[in-house]
């Protein structure tokens, strides 16, 4: 028996490896249209922009290297191996490579198919990993009620003082190292979720120019429900009637990015059914990670005879909130936010959706706000979905780099339009820059509108 086989057998015994073997056949990459894989001209322009290549200077850790592996697998010259699995989970999925690619390679699509192959081949299977994936991807994130129940439990844990007690008594030391890191990353859950803050239909006080649907998200709904309220306020202030369906489902991006393409399709179909597209001018999202995926429904469901057509219409109406505001023109706020603000660009906004100008437009529309540009603003902060949990070391390196760049701007507020980034930046700020405020650009705009209204009322009562 070769040494690798012996090591593998030993790993299986202690539950650290997949008993079915270290390799498996490809299903998803082989099904993927070959022209997608062939489009890479291996020119290397993606290398300097890839955060993992920048760190290791190893070809395998670059988009070009990963594409070469995926292409080899699709061609049947390489099995889906454990090394390939580890490689594709080392990738952040930040899509910076798509922005710089001269040949227009659709890396994101390949990446999703690659991860789906890794899951169906089971090359990374381990008992703990399986359990976590079942609890989250296959249970919590497909059941909105369950997700909220979990959110509620975390809120009770945090608000009751139990969390404080556990930390004080250092009971977290009892947790495995991985989970200990996770515990400290747990964001503050809000007392009220979006449903409690936003009515099903809200109509602007003035002239109604548009009717839009509002997506409330998962993490956004539990941790940043106030951002959803702010988004509704900003839309109202800009003449939009806001329709917010109750009990919305996850958009499925977490499934698509983690190798569960079938579940992702299921979630997409469910979302299509939630909104009456014919009665809406646009469907609005304020979470970059969701937005990039939501816009992709047309592609995700293009093979689905029942929903393909609806998905195309969905994608055509889907707008990131900044994009929508820039399109309809931003109502000038009467109040001001006299603060120095810098803007961190969420990967799935600037690379995933190519939206860079509009959030700045929103910030610049706020009187008194001084926008200072952030060095490497489009470089990933290391949040990358659940990357900060699965790859804590690389994630922390990226976070440190981001926090250093933010510190150099001297800004009091860093604006960012993705819940994942906000949680990550918050954790960075708590250890290196406690005074730093992390805010969604829309929240800052909402504040300016709010202050304007208050000033108006004050004048009226005076």
């Amino acid at each position: 028996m070769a040494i690798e086989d012996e090591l593998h057998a030993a790993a299986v015994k202690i539950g650290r490896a997949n008993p079915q073997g270290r390799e498996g056949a490809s299903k998803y990459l082989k099904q993927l249209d070959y022209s997608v894989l062939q489009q890479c001209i291996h020119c290397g322009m993606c290398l300097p922009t890839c955060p993992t290549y920048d760190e290791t200077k190893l070809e395998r850790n670059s988009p070009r290297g990963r594409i070469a592996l995926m292409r080899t697998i699709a061609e049947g010259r390489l099995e889906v191996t454990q090394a390939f699995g580890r490689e594709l989970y080392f990738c952040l999925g930040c899509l910076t490579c798509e922005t710089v690619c001269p040949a227009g390679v659709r890396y994101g699509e390949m990446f999703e198919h690659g991860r789906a192959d890794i899951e169906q081949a089971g090359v990374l299977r381990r008992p703990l990993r399986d359990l976590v994936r079942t609890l989250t991807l296959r249970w919590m994130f497909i059941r909105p009620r369950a997700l909220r129940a979990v959110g509620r439990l975390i809120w009770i844990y945090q608000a009751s003082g139990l969390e404080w007690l556990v930390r004080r008594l250092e009971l977290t030391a009892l947790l495995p190292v991985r989970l200990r890191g996770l515990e400290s990353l747990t964001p503050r859950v809000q007392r009220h979720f979006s449903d409690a803050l936003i009515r099903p239909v809200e109509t602007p006080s003035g002239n109604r120019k548009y009717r839009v649907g509002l997506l409330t998200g998962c993490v956004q709904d539990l941790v940043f429900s106030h951002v959803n309220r702010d988004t509704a306020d900003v839309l109202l202030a800009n003449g939009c009637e806001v329709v917010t369906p109750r009990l919305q489902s996850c958009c499925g991006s977490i499934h698509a990015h983690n190798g569960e393409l079938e579940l992702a399709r299921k979630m997409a179909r469910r979302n299509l059914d939630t909104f009456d597209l014919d009665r809406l001018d646009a469907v609005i999202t304020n979470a970059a990670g969701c937005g990039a995926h939501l816009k992709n429904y047309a592609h995700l469901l293009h093979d689905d005879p029942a929903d393909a057509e609806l998905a195309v219409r969905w994608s055509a109406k889907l707008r990131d909130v900044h994009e929508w505001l820039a399109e309809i023109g931003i109502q000038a706020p009467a109040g001001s936010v006299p603060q120095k603000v810098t803007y961190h660009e969420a990967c799935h906004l600037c690379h995933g959706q190519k939206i860079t100008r509009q959030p700045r437009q929103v910030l610049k529309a706020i009187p008194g706000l001084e926008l200072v540009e952030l060095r490497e603003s489009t470089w990933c902060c290391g949040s990358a979905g659940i990357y900060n949990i699965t790859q804590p070391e690389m994630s922390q390196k990226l976070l440190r780099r981001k926090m250093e760049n933010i510190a150099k701007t001297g800004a009091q507020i860093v604006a960012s339009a993705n819940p994942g980034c906000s949680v990550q930046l918050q954790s960075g700020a708590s250890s290196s820059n406690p005074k730093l405020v992390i805010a969604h650009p829309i929240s800052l705009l909402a504040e300016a509108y709010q202050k304007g209204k208050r000033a108006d009322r004050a004048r009226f009562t005076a």
Partner: protein
Amino acid sequence: MQKVASDLTKVLGPDRLLWEREHLLTYGFDGTAALSGEAGCVALPKSVAEVAQIVRYAAANRVPIVTRGSGTGLSGGSVPVAGGIVLCLAQMDQVLELDPKNLTIRVESGVVTQKVAELADGVGLLYPPDPGSMRISTIGGNVAENSGGLRGLKYGVTRDYVMGLEVVLADGEVVSFGNKCVKDVAGYSMKDVFIGSEGTLGVITKVLLQLVPKPAAKETLLATFSQMDAAAETVSAIIAAKIIPCTLEFLDKITIRCVEEYAHVGLPLDAEAILLMETDGHPVVVREEAKQMAEIARQHGAGAVQVAQTPEEAARLATARRVAFSALARVSPTTILEDATVPRSELADMVRFIQQTAAKYAVRVGTFGHMGDGNLHPTFLTDEKNTAEMARVEKAMAEIFDHAVALGGTITGEHGVGLAKKAFLPKAIGDASLETMRQLKRTLDPNNVLNPGKIFD
């Protein structure tokens, strides 16, 4: 694990000696279409001593070595030899000395070209060679391929900026050639032997580069032509008027259409050619030259001449040229970028010949390039899976190279011979020249260990 890999692991440790197949596959190619190979291992040295050790080992055991940097070459020069060693110098990336007094910079081979440009810029200097891949290409690779760029007409190519080299010879000996002296005629100019040698004569480990003062001003113009000849005549007239622009870039009809489809920059779709012209130097001179160039273009039938008034506008005018390659690369699965080069006076003839040949073989070719120095980039838009079309592409390419040579030009202006142009070299340079090159190779690398099978067999 092979014996070579296990032996070299003792030198570099397991992190810098890669042999897993998932690693080898990713070092199997460079920027060239349809060429690949699978090495036995990849070595990532961090010092010249380690390079020397690896080369000595390879020489003693007759294992082929293919040296590479970031693998952006366009002639297959760094495609691995099956079972051989890939010697990747990307991790030898120390900047050793920036010397503004002597206008030089000394770097290790793995330093990225862009970094050299930025360091020079930081002290008010310029490193002129700007190959298209400079954001990731390494200086070592640029020297080994003698890379060009957009500014060749006025500033020359990589060779013109190399003052010294440190090289590991085929027997593992470490030697240095050249120094910071502008004048030095002590013996043969050995550094010049290694510049453009494509990794076949030695392993370049350190480079001493010359920098020049940064020009104070730059003017950018864009001219549109309905006749290819008018564009070519404009170029000739500008040079005859004793103006040496830093950039004279051109796009042909197919490229213009692809660019317009991709970037919507407002180019006239009926134009046969557009010229992007830039002149740099003293502000007063530059302004005067820009005016003259605009005038010459109009006299020679340019439909429209735009002169940038602000740096932003200059960037906008340059967009068409900047995105030319991207625009073409999106059209089809396989993009083959060639670099047939002719004397400037033959440009119009050459471009027309390329268009006719493409039509004859029913293949799509977009041509853009450096009109100022005669370096064209006929770009084949094809699909390597389509064997019938690929056969026609090969034929068209061979005719284009033959014609370039017949016009007194060359088969490659800046990409090198590597594997891609190997078959065309004998005809292009003749038997006697080729034999001289072979003799040199045999003398410096008697065991044929360094990048065997590249340039010639």
